[in-house]
């Protein structure tokens, strides 16, 4: 606790000279240059990292350029070693350019292809190897429909297809298909159908179509297990050229022919909005700049002195303390009555009752019951008691 000096306190401080307190530009630079250096370092590291690594192909499932567990770079390398030209393409235009009877198209993701693109793929003359999807089957593999799905595990071929029979067991499952009967062979069957189907001739025209329920057996992770590698090579290496269609980096425009609302808005409006945002920032800076610091002040407490009494009243009420409340009211009345009745401060109850009854003209029994009677049984009784005490005091006062 601080002790202020005793005696006549110092008068308000004498006026000194004024001194600027705002930071100087040099001071700001000194204080902030560490943060500026840190920010520049972070920016530099980010730019260098981005330049060195380039576009990433990591984590792209079944991508012939991806060397992670889910990629298929191993298969692409094996195919290349066997003299197959693996062409990694990402647009339908490139597929059409490479299309020919000596090529095979590998499709494993059609979500990024528009219906128009699918139509164009359906018109190609190359053989097709379709991995694990159902929505585009009617276009790319007419006659083969998906039936259900089964768990992924190592399965036996159980069919006469040379590519499958030669490879032996493989890690397959996923989608299962309906075999359209003549001109088609189903292998690696689950409970409700085969998960690998190859169809030729009457169904698909000049090109052979192979549909697999899942592509896990072609990934870098699974390729070395079972007969996975053999199966993959048998399926994908049937033609000298393999067109490997990977999903494009940017999804194709949806709903060709109809422009989105964004395309319909003139560029000027969008840039005008940008300009309005700039204006908003400027206005925010204008309104947000305070003229000087916020002034703080130590304020005194604001406590009503009557709060303790109010609290005691609420406690009485909460506990229904009629005994204490009635005793306090009666004692107050008695202390006000005794001087009026001409009695000393230590007068007994009998003296007070007798004198009050005489002075007020009330019955002594009633006066006694009011002044020294039992504790009221309920709150209504307490309110009535207060009224009776008031009546008695008034009658004594006015007599």
């Amino acid at each position, binding site marked *: 606790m601080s002790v202020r000096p005793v005696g006549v306190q110092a008068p308000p401080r004498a006026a000194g000279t004024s001194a600027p307190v705002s930071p100087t530009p040099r001071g700001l630079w000194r204080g902030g240059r560490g943060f500026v250096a840190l920010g520049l370092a972070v920016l530099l590291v980010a730019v260098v990292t981005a330049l060195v690594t380039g576009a990433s192909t990591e984590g792209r499932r079944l991508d012939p350029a991806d060397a992670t567990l889910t990629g298929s770079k191993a298969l692409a390398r094996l195919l290349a070693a066997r003299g197959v030209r693996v062409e990694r393409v990402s647009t339908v235009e490139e597929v059409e350019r490479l299309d020919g009877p000596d090529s095979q198209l590998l499709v494993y993701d059609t979500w990024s292809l528009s219906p128009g693109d699918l139509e164009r793929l359906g018109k190609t003359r190359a053989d097709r190897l379709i991995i694990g999807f159902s929505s585009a089957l009617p276009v790319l593999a007419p006659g083969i429909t998906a039936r259900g799905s089964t768990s992924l595990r190592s399965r036996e071929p159980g069919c006469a297809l040379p590519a499958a029979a030669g490879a032996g067991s493989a890690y397959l499952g996923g989608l299962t298909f309906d075999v359209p009967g003549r001109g088609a062979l189903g292998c690696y069957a689950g409970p409700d159908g085969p998960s690998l189907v190859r169809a030729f001739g009457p169904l698909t025209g000049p090109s052979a179509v192979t549909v697999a329920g899942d592509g896990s057996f072609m990934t870098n992770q699974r390729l070395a297990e079972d007969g996975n590698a053999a199966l993959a090579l048998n399926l994908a290496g049937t033609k000298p050229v393999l067109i490997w269609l990977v999903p494009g980096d940017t999804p194709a425009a949806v709903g060709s022919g109809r422009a989105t609302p964004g395309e319909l808005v003139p560029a000027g409006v969008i840039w005008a909005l940008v300009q309005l945002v700039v204006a908003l920032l400027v206005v925010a800076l204008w309104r947000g700049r305070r003229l000087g610091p916020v002034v703080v002040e130590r304020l005194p407490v604001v406590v009503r002195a009557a709060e303790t009494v*109010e609290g005691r009243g609420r406690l009485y009420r909460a506990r229904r303390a009629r005994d204490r409340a009635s005793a306090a009211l009666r004692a107050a009345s008695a202390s006000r009555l005794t001087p009026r009745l001409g009695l000393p401060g230590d007068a007994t109850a009998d003296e007070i009752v007798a004198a009050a009854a005489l002075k007020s003209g009330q019955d002594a029994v009633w006066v006694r019951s009011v002044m020294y009677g039992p504790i009221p049984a309920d709150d209504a009784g307490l309110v009535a008691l207060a009224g009776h005490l008031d009546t008695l005091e008034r009658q004594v006062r006015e007599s």
Partner: protein
Amino acid sequence: MALTGRAGLIAALGAIVVLVAPRPAYAVLGLLLVLGALVMVDLLFAGGVRPLRFRRGGERLVRLGESVAVELIVENPGRRRVRGTVRDAWPPSAGASPRHLRLDVPAGERRRLVTTLTPTRRGDREAVTVTVRSLGPLGVAARQGSHRVPWAVRVLPPFLSRKHLPAKLSKLRELEGVHPALVRGQGTEFDSLREYVVGDDVRSIDWRATARRADVVVRTWRPERDRRVLIVLDTGRTSAGRVGTSPLPLPHPGTPVSPATGAVPASAAAGWPRLDWSMDAALLLAALATRAGDRVDFLAHDRVARAWTSGASRTDSLSALVNVMAPLEAELVEADAERMVATVMSRARRRCLVVLLTDLNPAAMDQGLLPVLPQLSSRHLVLVAAVADPRVAEMAAGRGTSEAVYDAAAAEHLRGERARLTARLRRHGCEVVDATPDDLAPALADAYLALKAAGRL
């Protein structure tokens, strides 16, 4: 640095330009560059804020409830004109107005700005900072900077009870004029001899003087002068409680009062601390005692002595008292009555009237003052003055509902305890003044006059 509304307007109007521009992206970029260039020009050509020099002048003292003007002299030693706004920042309870001042100082000249303070609270108010925003020639951006220009204004207690002073002074003169009717007492001294008139006390006949002259001569007495009055102000926790309604219709800082509705401001409803009411009463007593020729000392004490003034010179003792009282605040600690009594005993060696302005709080008194009171009253005459809470009387009269009756019982409980405490203090030989806030000052003055009339000082 600060931007202005004009910069925002330019940026907003730029949106229209962008809308019709053939190359909108370049238009946005170009507008940004233009705006940046305008801001740079303004910042370069705005008058410097840092070299400005400030001085202050004006009042240093103000009574609570009154206004005072504080001057700020701005000197521009730079080469460019400084045009813009100034904020002379004071604590909120200093009630500084206007908040912003317009400033226009040509190079090498000086200007005087006036801030009016209407404090809402007692104590010392120190100026915080002076902030200047100097606009550039285009009005798009401004330089901004702050200066520390020290100045303090002491807000004195309002001494509202001075309205009672003329009445009490005439009572005092009456007291001094009615010499013979005065009984000879301990605190009276011989004044003069005069002829006997019918009705004079025969006991005051001076027989020796009567024998010398052929007439009956009586001695006259007058109240003794040069007595000592020591006012002790309790600044402990009990003096922080707010009582009554604030007599000054001051707006609480931060809550503007609408004059149209005329609603009582929150601060007035919250009342005034007991400390301020006690100060008011103490000032009336001090003014009266000084006129009566007594010497007034003052001590403010809670755990330690907070303030002390000794009424050495009679002419300026009141102003010294007011000055010493101004910065006192109620401390939220329990008052140490033992140390207070020790301080009084060591500072007042001669017998004096000790006026103790405190609260009749039974719990605090039982453990604080009562045990050490005999020590104090053995040498001095002790007068205990306390502010009664009118809200308690209001609650004690509550009837009708059970809530009101329970509150009334609680209020009666407190009043009973106060009455018992008063009786105990009287048994110790103390005088007790227990009055509502508005009546405390006159009641205390009356008690002092009664003691003086009875020659008990």
